[in-house]
Each structure stands twice: as structure tokens, then as C-alpha cells.
């Protein structure tokens, strides 16, 4: 059976499963559409949250980022898990007690202001739309590589599948497909990792393999990796960073951004009780950690494997010839994600760090520049091929990557459509709309959102790489502080909250635009994006934490200068703090 047929069977079987679940779990009311009827078991919700959260970025890109940056990129691991601790203690239980359907719902009610609600809707739509573009392009890449269709056709297939189960089933359909998608993606991620861990360290569990001895050389794996990368002029894999302030702020920005992403928060509205919301956050973290504890092992092992493939006799000996390159390099060259240029004309693949510090050694060895560029994103997808694993593992990876992209896309699309139908149409434009009318509006806005996301996926704006910074920056600087202050302070009033959100958001956007271009238009950046230009060495990606601090300070200052919130709002704050009397999500 050819690899194409195997991939087709794995992907086809997983899609049939998702559509089957969608038909079984159709939504009949707005409550089922928005919060799955409020009856999802906390462990299942934890699993669905994990799939909702772990996107193409987690599945496809993260291990590649860690492989390239080593210790310095640990921020992604800590940031994208540590946010759940904040969510579990500072937001999820109280928002579940509040018991309505969307994040702007809480902000609008708590700050008794349709202005605040609209700011929240705008933040939600910008953050979620930018995020969904990445999922659609990720799905397109996976389709085009594994099913040999063009990128656009791949995207259309993905859009039709998401349309079927998200529009039909709403949150109910999405929840149960996400559970299935979690199972698919975690199996797909861990099986190749286990294989490689056994090959390299003779250890079954990859997280333990990471800190075990490398079988071939008998020294610890990380020590071996440090040696190999050092010989080729790269920074030591485990080397410490100089700019600790930036690493702290970057990690913090990812954490509060994670806790403030609306599509994750609304998942906690689907469990029956406040106590369940607390447990569910723990389970979500367990299911996420299964992948996040495996990722650093995959990162270091794949990097070592890659370098060993190029330098089979060790980094101080000659690399392999281009003519003898393995098949996986040929496969990925056709996608343009691996590029080779024989700069010194010796027919061999010289892969090393083209830095001034290494120039003397390179000249001595007759090298004329790094000849192989490998895109970080292919590391996980190519991992089974690099390690010569059987064909069915490759098919599994294809299905897993698609599951990660589609589950996150569906969650984001639901967050967008509920903000439009519930907060804009029912909350602002037509409060008297019937339940059936609102359900139809929700389905139509979901369809429109999918069409827009697909179009943007086919014609990605030039700033695709920067959008993640934007989504996390917005969530960290506007949504998280507003929600937290709404719960933990009775004194923050409508004016303070709006001023805080706008100030936090504004400063963050300006700082990002200064370095990445105004509105991401190429060539309009005021400063080149290098550490020398950054304010106190803080990168634009790390600024969300500062934006959040600005939001808190402005909100407190403005609130203390203006009148206290009315009595019924203070009572509302009281009521979200105590689980008693929550009951099921309130219809309204």
C-alpha cells in the first residue's frame, strides 16, 4: 500500500468519525449551541479543552521552536500551561457561576455598559479571527503535504468538514468531536515520540528519555546534543539566556494571554457545577501536559536525529553528499520548506551556524555559508520519516495535525459566532429575538465566519507570522484584566473598565506596530525589530504583560476618581464569588 493510500485511510477514517459525532450531537436550542446544554462531564470537558487549546501551533510548530531555540524557548512550554493555573483560580469558577453564554456577556453585565460589551466583542473578534487564519493555513499545509492536493483544495475540504459539525452541532457537536480529536492528536504525537525515545535512549517514556543517556555515545542525551551543536557553531542547547527580564515577561504574557483567550474560557461554561469547573481546569492541564511534556523530548531528539543524518560520522567529519540525501529531504524539498544551495560547490550538505564567531572554523573547513535551511514547522511532521518509522505512523501524524488544526478552528469559530449572534444581535441590535431566531443567527454567523476564515487562509495577509503575537497581546492586555477585576474588585466601575481596556490594548498595539509595522503593513515599522531597539530589552511579543499592568493601573485610577458601581452590580460581584445557587446555565 502506498504512503498516499495509508494517509488517505487515516485522515478519511478520522473525518468520518467527526461527522458521525456531529450528526449524533445536534444542537436543538441556543443553550445547546452555546454551552452544550451545560451538562458536560468535567473530565470530558478537560479533554475537549485540551483539543480546543492545542492548535496547529502546539502540534506542528512548538517542538520545532524548542528544537531551534533550546532552553531559551522554554517560555512556550511554561507560558501555554501556566495560564491554566490562572484560569483555574482567577476566572473559570466565577464565570461558570455567572452562568451566561459568552465572555462579552460578563463584561457587559458586570460593567453595566454596552460600550464595555462592544469593546470586548471587538477584542474577541480580532483575537479569534487572527488565530483562526493560522489554523486554516496549518490545515492547508497538512493536506497538501499528505494528501497531495493543492493548498486551496485542502482548505476547502477542511472548511466543509468544520462547517458540517460546527454549524450542525454548535458547542455540543464541537465538544464531542473535540474529545475524539484529542484522542487522535495525542496518539499521533506520542507514538512517534516513543519510537524515537526507544531508538535514542532505550527509554519508553519520552519525558524520561530526555534526561537519560544517549545509547550510542553512552553520555546523557542533552550533553551529546550540546556537544554536536557546539561543533557546528550553534549556541549550546541548554545554554542560559542573558535577557532574563524579557524571558520572564514573555512567559507572563503567554500565561495571561492563555487565560484570557475567549474560546478557552467558554469551554468552562459547559460543565454542570462550579466545583466541576475547578476540576475540569486540572484535567485540561493534565491532557495538555501529556503533549507538552513530550514536546521538549521530541525537540531535542529530532534535532539530534537531523544533525546525525547530515553528519553520519560526527560533526567534525564530512557531511553527506546531496546525491545521497534521504527521501524525506526530497519529499520536503518539493514543498519548499527545506532548501539546499551548494554554496561551496563540493556536492555535500554543509549545515552549520553562519555566525561571525564561527567564520574562522567554517573557512578552515572550506565552507562558504550554511547550505541547508530547514523550516521549523516541518520538524514534527517529518519526524517519523527522519527516524525511519513505518508508513502508518506517517498517516497517523497527518490525521493528528489535522485534528489539532480543526478542533481549534471550530472552538474559535464558535466564540466568534456566539459573540455576533448573542452579544451583537441579541444583546445590542434586537433584544426581542426568539430562541429559534437566535439559533438561526448563530448558525448563519458561524457559516460567514468559516467563509471569511477560509478566504483568509487562501490569501493569508503578509503578517501571518505576527498574528499570534497580536492574539495573545489583545487577550493579555484587554480581556484577562477586565475579567479579573470584574470578579476580584467591587470598586471598578464602567468608566474604569473601559478606560483600562482601551489603554492596555492601545499601548500593546502601538508597541507591536512600532517594531512589526503599522497595522502590519510591510515597511512601515518605525524601528527595526532587534533587541538593541527594544525598550528595556522587552520584545514586542513580551509586551502583553506590560499592557495588562497598564490596564490594571488605569482602571483603578479612573474608578477611584469616579463614583462606585451601583448596588445591584456589587451584589452581582458577591454572587459570582460564592458557588451556592449557581444551578445550570441561566436562560435569559
Amino acid at each position, binding site marked *: 500500500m502506498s504512503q498516499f493510500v495509508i494517509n488517505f485511510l487515516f485522515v478519511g477514517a478520522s473525518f468520518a468519525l467527526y461527522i458521525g459525532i456531529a450528526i449524533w450531537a445536534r444542537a436543538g436550542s441556543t443553550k445547546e449551541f452555546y454551552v452544550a446544554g451545560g451538562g458536560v462531564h468535567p473530565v470530558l470537558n478537560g479533554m475537549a479543552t485540551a483539543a480546543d487549546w492545542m492548535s496547529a501551533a502546539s502540534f506542528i510548530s512548538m517542538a520545532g521552536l524548542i528544537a531551534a531555540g533550546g532552553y531559551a524557548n522554554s517560555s512556550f512550554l511554561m507560558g501555554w500551561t501556566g495560564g491554566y493555573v490562572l484560569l483555574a483560580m482567577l476566572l473559570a*469558577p466565577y464565570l461558570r457561576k455567572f452562568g451566561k453564554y459568552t465572555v462579552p456577556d460578563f463584561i457587559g453585565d458586570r460593567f453595566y455598559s454596552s460600550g464595555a460589551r462592544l469593546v470586548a466583542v471587538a477584542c474577541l473578534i480580532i483575537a479569534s479571527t487572527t488565530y483562526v487564519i493560522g489554523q486554516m493555513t496549518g490545515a492547508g499545509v497538512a493536506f497538501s503535504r499528505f494528501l497531495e492536493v493543492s493548498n486551496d483544495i485542502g482548505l476547502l475540504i477542511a472548511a466543509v468538514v468544520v462547517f458540517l459539525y460546527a454549524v450542525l452541532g454548535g458547542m455540543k457537536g464541537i465538544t464531542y468531536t473535540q474529545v475524539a480529536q484529542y484522542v487522535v492528536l495525542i496518539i499521533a504525537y506520542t507514538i512517534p515520540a516513543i519510537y524515537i525515545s526507544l531508538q535514542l535512549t532505550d527509554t519508553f517514556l519520552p519525558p524520561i528519555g530526555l534526561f537519560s543517556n544517549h545509547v550510542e555515545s553512552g553520555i546523557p542525551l542533552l550533553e551529546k546534543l550540546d556537544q554536536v551543536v557546539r561543533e557546528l557553531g550553534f549556541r549550546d542547547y541548554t545554554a542560559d539566556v542573558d535577557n532574563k527580564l524579557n524571558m520572564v515577561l514573555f512567559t507572563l504574557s503567554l500565561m495571561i494571554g492563555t487565560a484570557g483567550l475567549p474560546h478557552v474560557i467558554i469551554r468552562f461554561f459547559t460543565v454542570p457545577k462550579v466545583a466541576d469547573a475547578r476540576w475540569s481546569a486540572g484535567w485540561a492541564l493534565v491532557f495538555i501536559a501529556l503533549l507538552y511534556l513530550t514536546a521538549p523530548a521530541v525537540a531535542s531528539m529530532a534535532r539530534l536525529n537531523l544533525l546525525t543524518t547530515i553528519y553520519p560520522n560526527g560533526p567534525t567529519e564530512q557531511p553527506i553528499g546531496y546525491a545521497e540525501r534521504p527521501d524525506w529531504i526530497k519529499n520536503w524539498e518539493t514543498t519548499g520548506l527545506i532548501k539546499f544551495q551548494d554554496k561551496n560547490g563540493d556536492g555535500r550538505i554543509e549545515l552549520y551556524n553562519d555566525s561571525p564567531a564561527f567564520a574562522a572554523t567554517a573557512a578552515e573547513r572550506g565552507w562558504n555559508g550554511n547550505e541547508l535551511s530547514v523550516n521549523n514547522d516541518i520538524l514534527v511532521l517529518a519526524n517519523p520519516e527522519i527516524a525511519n518509522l513505518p508508513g502508518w505512523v506517517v498517516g497517523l501524524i497527518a490525521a493528528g495535525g489535522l485534528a489539532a488544526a480543526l478542533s481549534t478552528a471550530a472552538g474559535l469559530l464558535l466564540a466568534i459566532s456566539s459573540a455576533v449572534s448573542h452579544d451583537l444581535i441579541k444583546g445590542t441590535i434586537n433584544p426581542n429575538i426568539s430562541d429559534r431566531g437566535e439559533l438561526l443567527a448563530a448558525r448563519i454567523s458561524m457559516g460567514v465566519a468559516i467563509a471569511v476564515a477560509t478566504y483568509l487562509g487562501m490569501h493569508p495577509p503578509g503578517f501571518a507570522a505576527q498574528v499570534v503575537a497580536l492574539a495573545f497581546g489583545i487577550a493579555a492586555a484587554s480581556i484577562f484584566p477586565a475579567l479579573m477585576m470584574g470578579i476580584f474588585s467591587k470598586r471598578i466601575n464602567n468608566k474604569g473598565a473601559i478606560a483600562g481596556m482601551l489603554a492596555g490594548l492601545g499601548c500593546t498595539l502601538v508597541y507591536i506596530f512600532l517594531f512589526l509595522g503599522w497595522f502590519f503593513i510591510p515597511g512601515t515599522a518605525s524601528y527595526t525589530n532587534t533587541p538593541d531597539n527594544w525598550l528595556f530589552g522587552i520584545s514586542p511579543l513580551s509586551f502583553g504583560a506590560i499592557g495588562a499592568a497598564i490596564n490594571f493601573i488605569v482602571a483603578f485610577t479612573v474608578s477611584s476618581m469616579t463614583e462606585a458601581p451601583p448596588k445591584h452590580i456589587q451584589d452581582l460581584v458577591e454572587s459570582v464569588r*460564592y*458557588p451556592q445557587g449557581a444551578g445550570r446555565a441561566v436562560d435569559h
Partner: protein
Amino acid sequence: MSNPKSNAEKYWQANLRLILGCLVVWALASYGGAILLRPLLSSIHIGGTDLGFWFAQQGSMLVFIAITFFYAWRMNKLDKEFGLEE
């Protein structure tokens, strides 16, 4: 006793204390052990590298899971102690 606090107020104070404690552990594992204190801990070796690297790529996440479950367990117990459970 001067100015006795209501049951609900005491519950909220207990929650705030618990959150604060958990956040201290959360920060120590990530910002402390994995980043700021890494140079101090560099003499403690583990699997070919130092303790700070382990915290950054493994330990912090294990601590996060422990904190989240501990908080859920403790709060769900407090709900009952104060008679505020659903």
C-alpha cells in the same frame, strides 16, 4: 469580638489566602526555578543538564498540575465547610 465577619466574607478571605499561596508556588516553579534562580541552581545536575533546565522543560508543568488539583480539592472542601456548595 469586634466587628465579626460574615460567613461569606470569611469564605472569600480563605479563598484569597489560598490563591495567594498557590500563586507563590506557581511563580517559584516557573519564574523562580526555571528562569531567575537558574544560575544559583546550576550546581545541581540532572540528566546531563542542571535543575533550572529541568524546571523549564518539565518540572514547572508538573507543579502547575499539582497546584490546580490542590486548589480544586481545597476549594471544593471549603465550599462544604462554609455551607456554600451548590
